[in-house]
């Protein structure tokens, strides 16, 4: 892998260069940011519509669901900001421009992440933050150090889980020509599912979400702990602290899948 100590500094440098280029066009940047902000509100309105008709969702109240939505929404927005441009990766493989990344002395994933960073995606994060603020204003959370730590760790853990799923599924492009749709079904679909309490889903979907795609660890388990809520599914309590561990594991798996994809690309030809 070589020396990686200067990677954080190089990341900042490359991303800053992208942002500088984007800010050359201030008006269009402002409009795009406003657009993404608007979209995240429309998503929230969809939740409001559900609650106008059903006051409770599988024993979860409106503010409690808002907490789930806030955690997963904020984490997904951060994921999207950091690696949303991974969506262009299948095109990179198809055009053969992935070759260029292979002849530079840095990791291919690192180069893609710094390749087309879009600051306008920051707008999506604002939506998640507002919903989170709303949830906490309505809920009477008995704050203690444990709860603060769980909440503070829940956001990066959820981000890492979304990122892993995104990376692992976009790898389809190493084998199939059009991998973006397949990947989006998992990443955007996963975010949608994580907004709701997982106990409302059917058993098979629940198992799938908890094990194969660890959506339950995005918001469900951390929220149970913060709210001191008994698990409607009766799952063990220690699962509520497992999100960071699951996230780390997911990242390792995603990294392995990526490496396998690169090896396949190298032996199959671009």
């Amino acid at each position, binding site marked *: *892998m*070589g*020396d990686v100590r*200067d990677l954080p*500094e*190089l990341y900042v*440098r*490359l991303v800053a*260069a992208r942002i*500088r*280029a984007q800010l*050359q066009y201030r008006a269009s940047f402002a409009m795009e940011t406003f657009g993404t902000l608007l979209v995240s509100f429309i998503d929230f309105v969809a939740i409001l519509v559900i609650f106008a008709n059903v006051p409770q969702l599988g024993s979860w109240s409106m503010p409690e669901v808002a907490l789930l939505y806030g955690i997963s929404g904020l984490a997904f927005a951060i994921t999207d900001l950091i690696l949303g441009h991974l969506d262009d990766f299948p095109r990179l493989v198809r055009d*053969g*421009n992935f*070759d*260029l990344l*292979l*002849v*530079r*002395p*840095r*990791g291919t994933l690192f180069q893609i992440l710094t390749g087309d960073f879009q600051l306008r995606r920051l707008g999506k994060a604002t939506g998640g933050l507002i919903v989170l603020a709303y949830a906490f204003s309505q809920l009477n959370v008995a704050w203690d150090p444990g709860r603060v730590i769980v909440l503070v760790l829940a956001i990066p853990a959820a981000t890492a889980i979304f990122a892993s799923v995104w990376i692992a599924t976009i790898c389809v492009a190493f084998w199939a020509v059009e991998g973006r749709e397949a990947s989006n079904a998992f990443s955007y679909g996963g975010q949608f599912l994580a907004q709701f309490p997982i106990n409302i889903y059917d058993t098979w979907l629940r198992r799938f979400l908890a094990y194969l795609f660890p959506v339950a660890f995005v918001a469900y388990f951390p929220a149970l702990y913060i709210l001191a809520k008994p698990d409607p599914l009766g799952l063990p309590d220690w699962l509520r602290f497992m999100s960071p561990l699951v996230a780390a594991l997911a990242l390792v798996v995603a990294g392995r899948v990526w490496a396998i994809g690169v*090896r396949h690309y*190298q*032996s*199959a*030809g*671009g």
Partner: protein
Amino acid sequence: MPIIEVEHVEKEFTVRRPLGRLRRERVRVRAVVDLTFAIERASIVGYIGPNGAGKSTTVKMLTGILVPTRGRISVAGLVPTRQRMRLAGKIGVMFGQRVQLWWDLPLVESFDLLRHVYRVPADRHRENLLRFRDLLELDPFLNTPVRQLSLGQRIRGELTAAMLHDPEIVFLDEPTIGLDVIAKQRVREFLLQANRDRGVTVLLTTHDLADIERLCSRVLILDRGRLIYDGDVPSLKSRFGKERVLVVDLEETAPPLRLAGARVVRVEGPRQWIAFDGDRTSAAELTGAVAAQAPLRDLTVEEPEIEDVVRRIYEEQPE
């Protein structure tokens, strides 16, 4: 010790060919067949052949982009696919059609970012950039965003980007494609100088045979995945390019001349093209024979072009 060693290397691809409407068959295609060659440090080697001959597959294997199916490759003492990232720091790559520079940033900012990507110390970077600015005359567009550069300016920028980190070897894919005569000349002089002053090894693929004649000490010719020629340019010409052409302008239009040891290959009004074997007949003898048959106004002798030479080699290859 050679800087590039290729031993019995083969590359096979699996392609799916449609069989009727739904069924597809998998076919193994050999892109490179039993390739063996070695390249000495500080040489400039031309790698030529028709499209699909396996040139870019070879370059991709040498740079670590593709894993060979069989055989052994060593580049700068490393195994390309296993030590790809380490090798990347020792080589420079320029694909004529691909943009390596940051599209919407000023050229000079791309160079600065690359300095960090390749971990080049600041003072060495400054010194190198100064030299490139001078040799490739980059100053007039150094602060222009890459997307606004002309093709010639961009290629000069790409060359700089490929060589700023002092690579031991540069792989250039069609470095002069689409450039005007002056820009081509500038790129060639630059490469010769980098080779002379810094001992950079250059492997270039090109369709431009003037590139080969001006730059290369050696040529490798590839056809259908096989190496069909490996040697210097003069002996390539003498082996396959003995046929020269005498172009004569006669006083008036005449039927094709009949000459011993030569044949008329083309007639255009009073002008005739006469091909002859340079080893057996001299241009002077032939001119005398022509003048004996018809009054001459003017004449020139055309030297063989590498293009013709390469075509001849292809013709000699059994199908």
